[in-house]
C-alpha cells in the first residue's frame, strides 16, 4: 500500500518543532513521505507543553497540538550538540531527500549542521529553514512563536473592534499560514532536483510567507497610502454581515448577505419583513452605512433562537449562514464527519486519541493517517537499526556517549 501513496519516494529528516514546521511535514507524511522526527530529550519539543492536553493531564505525551502535528512520523532522540549525535544526524542527512529545520538561525550553525556542512556530504540535499523572520537581517535572531510573528507582521492589529485594543486572530497565526508554503517549497525544490540534479537551500521567513494573506491591505498602503484598520465583523461589500447571538451560553451564528436577494430572504426568514421596506436598509450601500442599527435589530431577533436550527432555516433559503462552531459542535458536524475530519488513532502510551485528518482529498490516492505521533524516542532503535543499519554494539556505544539523549 505504502508504495502507492504520492510521496512514498520522499525521505524527510525533520528537525522542526512547535507548529509551523511540523505542520508542513505532517501533511507530507499523510501522503506517504517517510519522516524521521529528531527531538532531544534534553530539550524536547515545546509543542509538548502546549494544550489541549488529553483528559486535562499535562504530561510530555498528552499534548493535542503535538499529537496533531506529528502523526505518521517516526521519532528519534538525538543530542545534536554531542559529536556522536551529530554523526547520526549526518547519516540521516545521507538517507534523506529533504532536511527541514525550524530552529533559530544560530542553532544549526552551532551544531555544524548548516547548509554548507550538509551540502558537503550530500550536494543534492534540499534543505529548508523555517524561522520567524528569516535567516538574515537585523531581526534574524529574533526567536519566538507564531503569535509574535502575527503581531509583528500586521495580522494582530487587524483583528478586533475599532473602539477597543486589538485582539488579533487566535493564537500563533503565522503557524497556520506558513506550513502550506513550506511544504509547497519543499515539493517544488524536489521537482527541480529531479530535473537538474541540484539541491538547494530554502530560507523561509514565517512572517514573509504569511504576508501574502494581507496582500490587498499591503497594496492599499503602498499604492494609496491608506493604513488598513480593524473593523469588527463589518465587511466592505456585504451587509448585514456579522456574528449574532443565539439562545444558550456563548452560542452564535454568522450571517452574511451578499445582495438584496439575500437581504429580503433574511427578513422573511427572521420574521422581520417590516425591515425590508425600511429606507435605512433599502440598498447594500445603505445597509452598510447603517450596519450598527441593523446588527442590533437582527441580534434582538436571533437572541432567542437555536443557532443550528437557524442555520438550517437560512441555508434552506441559500443565505450564507452558519453557527459558530466550538470543539463540541465541530465534532458533531455532519459535514466534518462526512469528510472524515476527525481520525481516531491508537497511541503507544495514551491509548485511543483523535487527530485531524487531511484537509483535502485526492480522489485516487487518499491520505493515510494511521499512526499516532511518536512518544519521545519511541522509534530510536528502529531508525538506528532498520534505517541506518547500525549494529547493537554501535548503538550501545552511542547510548554510553550520551548521543541519544
Amino acid at each position, binding site marked *: 500500500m505504502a508504495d502507492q*501513496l504520492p*510521496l512514498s*519516494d520522499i525521505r524527510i529528516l525533520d528537525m522542526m518543532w512547535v*507548529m509551523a514546521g511540523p505542520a508542513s511535514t505532517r*501533511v507530507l507524511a499523510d*501522503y506517504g513521505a517517510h519522516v524521521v522526527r529528531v527531538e532531544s530529550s534534553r530539550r524536547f519539543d515545546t509543542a509538548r507543553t502546549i494544550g*489541549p*492536553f*488529553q*483528559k*486535562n493531564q499535562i504530561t510530555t505525551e498528552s499534548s*493535542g497540538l503535538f499529537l496533531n*502535528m506529528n502523526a505518521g512520523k517516526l521519532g528519534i532522540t538525538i543530542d545534536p550538540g554531542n559529536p556522536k549525535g551529530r554523526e547520526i544526524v549526518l547519516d540521516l542527512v545521507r538517507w534523506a531527500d529533504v532536511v527541514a529545520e525550524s530552529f533559530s538561525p544560530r542553532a544549526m550553525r552551532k551544531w555544524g549542521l548548516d*547548509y554548507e556542512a550538509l551540502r558537503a556530504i550530500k550536494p543534492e540535499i534540499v534543505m529548508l529553514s523555517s524561522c520567524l523572520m528569516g535567516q538574515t*537581517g*537585523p531581526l534574524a535572531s529574533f526567536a519566538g512563536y507564531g*503569535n509574535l510573528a502575527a*503581531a509583528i507582521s500586521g495580522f494582530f492589529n487587524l*483583528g*478586533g*473592534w475599532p473602539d477597543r485594543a486589538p*485582539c*488579533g*486572530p487566535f*493564537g*500563533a497565526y503565522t503557524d*497556520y499560514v506558513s506550513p*502550506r*508554503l513550506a*511544504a509547497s517549497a519543499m515539493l*517544488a525544490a*524536489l521537482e527541480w532536483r529531479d530535473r537538474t540534479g541540484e539541491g538547494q537551500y*530554502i530560507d523561509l521567513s514565517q512572517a*514573509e510567507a504569511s504576508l501574502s494573506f494581507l*496582500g490587498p*491591505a*499591503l497594496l492599499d*498602503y503602498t499604492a*494609496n497610502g491608506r493604513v488598513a*484598520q480593524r473593523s469588527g465583523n463589518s465587511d466592505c461589500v456585504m451587509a448585514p454581515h456579522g456574528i449574532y447571538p443565539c439562545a444558550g451560553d*456563548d452560542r452564535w*451564528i*454568522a450571517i*452574511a448577505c*451578499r445582495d438584496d436577494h439575500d437581504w429580503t430572504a433574511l427578513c422573511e426568514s427572521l420574521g422581520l419583513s417590516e425591515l425590508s421596506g425600511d429606507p435605512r436598509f433599502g440598498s447594500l450601500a445603505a445597509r452598510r452605512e447603517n450596519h450598527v442599527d441593523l446588527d442590533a435589530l437582527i441580534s434582538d431577533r436571533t437572541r432567542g433562537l437555536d443557532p443550528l436550527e437557524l442555520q438550517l432555516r437560512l441555508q434552506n433559503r441559500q443565505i*450564507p449562514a*452558519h*453557527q*459558530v*462552531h466550538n470543539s463540541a459542535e465541530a*465534532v458533531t458536524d455532519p*459535514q466534518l464527519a462526512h*469528510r472524515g*475530519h476527525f481520525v481516531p488513532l491508537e497511541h503507544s502510551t495514551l491509548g485511543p486519541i*483523535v487527530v*485531524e485528518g487531511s484537509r*483535502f*482529498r*485526492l480522489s485516487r*490516492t487518499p491520505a493515510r493517517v494511521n499512526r499516532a505521533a511518536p512518544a519521545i524516542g519511541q522509534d530510536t532503535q528502529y531508525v538506528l537499526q532498520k534505517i541506518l543499519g547500525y549494529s547493537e554494539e554501535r548503538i550501545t556505544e552511542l547510548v554510553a556517549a550520551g548521543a541519544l539523549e
Partner: protein
Amino acid sequence: MLSPYQVLDLTNERGLLCGQILGDLGADVIKIEPPGGSRARSFGPFLDDRQGPEKSLYWWAFNRNKRSITLNLDKPEGRTILEQLASKAHFLIESETPGEMAARALGYENLASLNPALVYVSISPFGQDGPKARYADADLVVLAAGGPLIIGGDEDRAPVRVSVPQAYLHASAEAAMAALIAHRERQRSGRGQHVDVSAQQAVAQATQSYILSVPLESDQIQRMSGGVKVGPLKVQLVWQVRDGNVAVVFLFGSAIGPYTRRLMEIVHAEGYCDEATLNKDWLRYTELMLSGQEPLAEYERLKGIVGQFLAGKTKTELLELALKCGLLIAPVTTIEEVVNSPQLAARGFWTEVHHPEVGRTIRYAGPFAKFSRSPIRQRRRPPMIGEHNREIYFQLGYSDPQLESMQRRGVI
C-alpha cells in the same frame, strides 16, 4: 521549478492565491476569465479609490505571474475551447460551487476523459460532497464552521474575524500544496486525479488544534480580550505599552519557562518585583496553579507587575530588549509599520512592479521563500482582462478574424 507545466486557473475570488503560488514557483498560469473580466475584479480596495476592473488591488494582490484570456464557459464554443486547453494542460484549478462545473460538462470526469494526466483542483467552502457541499458561503461563514472564530475576540462581545478576509486564502494555499502532492504522484504513475479542498477543513488549522479539545476530553478554551481563558487561567498575550501594544508570551513550562525567567530578571532588576517573585518555579508554574499550590490571585498579581513594567516602555524599546536578552516580546504593528520594516527592507522583500497601463510603479509583497538555486521571480504583473488572448489563441490555431468573430459572439 515548475516551468515545464501549464496551469489553467478558472477560479473566482475564492481561489486566486493557488494559481499565484504555482506561478511564483515557475508554472505557466493562464487565468481564464469570463468576457468582461472576473468577478474578483469588482473587489476593493481600488487604485486611487477609482472603481474599475483594471484598478482592483484585490485582483492585483493574487494574480501576479499569470497570463489572462477571456472565455465564456456558458457557451458551447467556449466549452470546446476549454476542452482543447485542458487536453494539454497539467493542472486546472476551479472554485465554483460543487456541481456547477459538472453541469457544464467540465467536471473532473469530463476533462479526465480527454486528459487522464490532468490534476484537477477544486476549492470549495465545504468540499465537493457531504450535506453542506452546496451551502451558501462567505469568509465569515467558513470561519464560523471551521472553528477558529469562537476563540477569537473579546469575552463580552461576539467572536470577531481579521478584517482582511482569510478563509479562502487558507484554502488556496492548501490547494497549491495538494496540487503539488498529486503532481509528484503523477510523475511516477502518469495519471492525474481530482484534488478536493475544503475551506472549512483548511481553516480548522487556525484553531491551533483546540478543535480537538472535546475529542481529547480536555476543557475547551474561551476567548478573552488580549488573550485566552484556559480553564481557570486568564492567559494574557497582548499588553498595552506607551505607544501601542505588544504581544508577550508570558507562559511557563520546560520550554517557555526559561524565557519568562529572563523577563522576570529584568523586571526585578528594574525594581518592579521582589526576589521571592523572581525565584518562582517558572518551569512548573502552570502545574502549581492547576494543583492549587499557587493561588490564582498570585498569578493575577504577577500579570499586574509585568503590565506595569511594560506600560512605561515603547514598542521599539521592547523589541530591542527582546533581541538583546532573548525575550518573547513583539510589537503589534500597523500595515504602515510592516511596509516600512527595516527587517523586510534588509532582506529585499519588496518588489517594485511597473504597471504601464496606469503609469505607476507599485511596491508588492515579495516571494514567500528564498530559494538559493531557483529563486522566485516576479515575471509578470497581474494581467489585464484578456491581455493574452491573441498570443494564447494564436497558439491554439485561431486567426485574427476568427478571434474577432468569437469576440462579437461573446465567446471570448
